[in-house]
């Protein structure tokens, strides 16, 4: 099958999780912990499915094809969603080689870096 130019580009992108990002797959969702920033990211089932297929070997098109097989959704329908999801991962700095821009910090939660941010001393 001939691919369009945009799709051809997606064939050459092989995203992988950043090594500092820990994954807890709690079916059907996933929760990510970014050890660099101490941040938690909760992924819905769709995003979790995409995340689990990112291994640095498969391209975005490959991932869409695999999800198409799994969920029975035509690849042309699922590909834009996969692309958007991967872009979101990249924007959050969750992918290898894609550090987050300073203006973008869309983590769901930031975990406390100091004990007294949580269990606070009483107000004087």
């Amino acid at each position: 099958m001939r691919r369009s130019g945009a799709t051809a580009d997606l064939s050459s992108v092989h995203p992988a999780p950043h090594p500092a990002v820990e994954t807890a797959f709690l079916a059907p969702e996933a929760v990510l912990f970014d050890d660099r920033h101490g941040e938690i990211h909760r992924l819905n089932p769709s995003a979790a499915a995409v995340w689990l297929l990112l291994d640095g070997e498969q391209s975005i098109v490959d991932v869409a094809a695999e999800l198409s097989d799994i969920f029975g959704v035509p690849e042309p329908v699922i590909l834009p969603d996969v692309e958007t999801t991967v872009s979101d991962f990249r924007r959050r700095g969750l992918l290898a080689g894609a550090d987050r821009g300073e203006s973008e910090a869309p983590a769901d939660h930031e975990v406390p870096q100091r004990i007294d941010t949580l269990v606070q001393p009483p107000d004087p």
Partner: protein
Amino acid sequence: MTGRIGPFWAAQRRFVIESDDTEILVELDQRLVDLGNHPSSGTSEPTAAPIVFRLERTGPRWMSHPWALWRDGEPCELTLTHDYVVPYVLWEVTRLVLESATVPIVPMHAAGLVRDGHAIALIGPSHSGKSTLAGWLAKSGWGFLTDEVSLLDTSQWPPVVHPFWRPIGVRRPGPLDAVIDEAGAAAEILVPASRLGPLADPAPLAALVCPTYTPGADGSPEPMSAAAALTSIADQIPSLGREGSEVFRVLAGVVDTTAAFRMEFDDLDVATEQLASLVDDLVADTAMVEQGA
């Protein structure tokens, strides 16, 4: 003449408090009385010298901030008001617990209560109502582990919640006023939990509950997905920022194997009944599974 009270235990850390001021020592001794009990945890009592907190009144009574606190000779805070002294000492004691807890012990910003040998952790940010609910459960006969920092031992399954019997921070006016019956104008007082109910020994964790005081709510526990539970409790784990991925992995294992619930409550008696039913049902379910196995 310098007086000394203690030893007390902040989990496995032993400490004493010294001061030239008898009045403040008497008050601290009353507020921290439950910490004078060694938390039975199967580990041996520490043999190291206790940590020494020293409180000194560094100025006359008319000064606004006459108190200073040292820990093993190092200054903690040198400008404390009289009303702030006891809460601040308790904060430093809590810091001892948080500092010393490392994997497999995970400290959670959570109250811990025990029913029939099974613990629940009430997890939530300050002002979510967990201390009030913890006090109410204690007065209703539940065993008290803590109202603020639950120490989760994840080296066992199910994880075991260890006690930190610090006094309960009771805000006033509030529902526990009538039970405590203590005069004074302070907006928050520290009440030894043993004045409300029994102190509890370590107990296996039966459920994680995220309570929120919500006027008009019926107190029904609503199941949370493991991912939702992990996201919620991660916000309440002081050591996650310090120990990072190691703690995250441990927590993921805990939420994957422990029932978790969200609970909006209003009436404390109703909430107590709901939680009792919840624990009873979970224990019965576990027993059935074990029999089936």
